[in-house]
């Protein structure tokens, strides 16, 4: 692009932008679900052991609660991941999504969302594991 007068020409003409409005907030969505799941599990365990079972008491229903949180969190993360995947697959361009068009920016946001959802999914599973293997408040 030698002629700067032409730099502001819309490249979007070749790769039409999506109709949906994007937002940067889609990126932190899945990790936020991870964080809420983490916090809820931690608080549940802490309050259960401090107020219900006492030190050394059985975890009982606290484990069930963590299980429910985990199922809900994984479902939401999966939905976010799917929304990301749809954005990533928009049109027919492939990664690395580094063109100067609104469409590629849309795909990039989608792809990064997918990656973050995958990380959050695995991290949520990891955080849930202690509730599988631990039976008491010791």
């Amino acid at each position, binding site marked *: 692009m030698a002629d700067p007068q032409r730099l*502001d020409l819309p490249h979007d003409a070749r790769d039409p932008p999506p109709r949906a409005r994007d937002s940067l907030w889609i990126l932190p969505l899945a990790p936020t679900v991870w964080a809420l799941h983490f916090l809820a599990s931690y608080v549940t365990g802490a309050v259960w052991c401090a107020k219900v079972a006492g030190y050394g008491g059985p975890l009982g229903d606290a484990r069930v609660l963590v299980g429910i949180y985990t199922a809900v969190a994984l479902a939401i993360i999966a939905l976010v991941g799917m929304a990301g995947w749809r954005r990533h697959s928009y049109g027919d361009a492939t990664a690395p999504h580094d063109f100067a068009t609104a469409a590629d920016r849309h795909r990039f946001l989608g792809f990064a969302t997918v990656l973050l959802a995958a990380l959050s999914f695995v991290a949520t599973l990891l955080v849930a594991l202690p509730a599988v293997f631990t039976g008491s408040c*010791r």
Partner: protein
Amino acid sequence: MSDDTETRRAAAQAERLLTAWKTPTGWRYWSAVNNSEVGLWYTTVAFAFFFFAGILGLLIRAQLAVPGNDFLDADTYNQVFTLHGTVMMFLFAVPIFEAFSIMILPEMLGARDLPFPRLSAYGFWSFLIGGVFVCGSILFDAAPKGGWFMYPPLTTEYQDGVGVDIWLLGLSFIEVASIAAAVELIVGILKCRPPGMRINLMPLYAWYLLVVAAMILFAFPPLITGDLLFEMQRAFDWPFFDPDRGGDPLLWQHLFWIFGHPEVYIIFLPAIALVATMVPVFARRPIVGYSWIVLAAVGTGFISFGLWVHHMYTTGLPGLTLGFFSAASVAVAIPTGIQIFCFVATALAGRVIASTPMLYVSGALAIFVIGGLTGVMVALAPFDFQVHDTYFIVAHVHYVLVGGVVFPVTGAFYYFYPLAGGKTLSDRLGRIAFWLMFSGFNIAFLPMHLTGLRGMPRRVFTYEGGVGFDVLNLVSSIGAFILAAGFAVFLWDVLRPKGRQPYSPRNPWNAGTLEWLGEMPDKPWGVRSIPVIESRNPLWDQPNLVRDVDAGRFYLPDAEELKRETLVTSILDAEPIQCLRVPGPTFLTMGAAAGTGGVFIFSTYHWWWLAGLSGVLALGMVLTWLWTGTALIPEKPAKDVGLGTTLPLYKSGPQSVGWWAMFITMMGDMTAFAGLVFGYYFYWTIHEDFPPDPAAGPGVAWPLTALGLFLAAWLLTVLARRWNAGGRRQSFFAALGLACLLTVAGTAALATGPAVTGLDPTAHVYPATVWVLVLWVGIHAAVGVVMLLYCIARGFAGKLTPQWDIDIHVVTLFWHFLAVTVLVTVATLAGFPLVA
């Protein structure tokens, strides 16, 4: 137009730009607020503190070189190691990233400056004053000596003197500077990118910085909360950490590490961002896995908040809790590993050019990977039980921080030095320094793993001979001095006279990002004209970019009104939306920092009158700064910024940068408030009778009255904004005036509750917790009233009108947050005793 005319026009434009962006000379030089000056001062001072803390480190190693040494006595040794850790963490590692980013981020974004240059300058002066205060204490034998995390009850009951207060107040002050930097960086990255630099084309450095700045907002405030509680205990005997009166030292550990662990990543991510900047340049290809690195930055940012309890494995928390944090501590290795693999892949896919910065990057990766692996080891609770508080941890933390921060930063120093000074550093000296540092570091710290496994505890001023520590310690001490020799060579390279050395060629490393547009030596305008970007590496992919930028063929090539201007663009696609006027040199920021510093420093010695006077000085300075430098009404609503584009000079509401700054600041403020509320519920979980039954206070009636008054004030503020916009000026003034009165009444009502029910904050932690929440609301109410009065004054002065109304929008936003604060406070104080 003939070539000659065009040349003359361009020269006149350049002349006007130079005049607008001229650096003040003589003693007025220190009034500069431009990013290149402030960034340079910031970097210099941060490195000065680094060398100071490094010398303290050498004193530690000299003392530990042989068993039974009496080079330092126990008390001095405690001060030395406490300051070593504190200064390295708070006065080097965090500030150096702020310093680097203030210096290079605007250049990387092709911006003339960041949106709030005076805020950066204020942050710098705060950092300098606070840092000198904290460091200077050791010269008067008054330094803190409780370790860099200041655990009570050691520091509340067993250590006299002002050392702890110096630590608490000095560092709180510096945290203010960090939050200021966070505001600056977030708004700068999201709103001041060059046209065309869509979010998918942003340099990775900016991505990392965005994540880090957001992390600061959620990590630093809990420590400010902790500092507040701690200082209330030390100064006024409110028993937050005193078990005899219901307090709990563990609350400090929680608040400290909710800050402390993310902080490790707050200093690591910007350094790894430097690696991500340098690796593609020397591999001569674009980075491999750009999206994956964005994933790593954002993912690490989040997961790092789920690790804090791994510093507290041995405090007796339930196994389940340890399990959660252990799992998260292992999970964080995933994104951390991903970015390392991306760097290695980039290097393998390209043709790596041997160079001094790349040498440091390689050394950094090697050392950091070892530190990361021992990190996974200590993330496992059973292993950690064995090595907790031993030299194994000392080795781990140094591998992580030296590999993750010091080596990348030193490499980046070699890399970016031409941008700051126009000259290059010596390759030969750089290599000598590197090998001394690399070998010295490993000789010093590798044996410490073994010293720790053999059982040597950290923070002891000496040890018995003949129990297996002697040789290892001696080797470590020798290594430390070799490491120091490397830094001495580096320091000489930086300081040696370079008068006869020719200027570096432009873009000496042949990099692809915009900061290398600068001429050698650089001009104060940042960039001659703000280019349109179409690539992640515009200098590689956009032919003639440099020529066209220099010829002023892009945006803002001129400063017709001789004012400092930069572009504001949209968040996702960087479409130009505003021409932002940024303020120029002033001493107000220095004065404001001196006033704020006075508040903290005089409070240390309980000189309340002087502290109060300093507070008034700071308030006066800040108000003058705001009055004369912000929300200025432009002489015309819009101007031609070049390339046939006309942009407004004034944007109000959520489109103004000031609104964003307030929003971001209040996110941090809400986090600090959440820390206080966490304290309340924390005490509930550990006590049978918290809140006491029957309730001791503050009752329900007074808090509810307060809530009603505050909500009415909030509603009036919102209405005032609408009435102003609708031109109903008298209603606007009346509403704001009434809101002030209601706020004062509301604060009084909130304080009356605990006062009439006889809650004594020194008697037990329950009344102390109630009072501290009331105090928090009171401080915010006072700020809220000042803001309302400011808007009234601006209205009368004709600086706040129906058309030009940034101020009232920003103040209303503050009031939204204040309303939430009061709501949560009243729900907790009045509501929770009923439920519990």
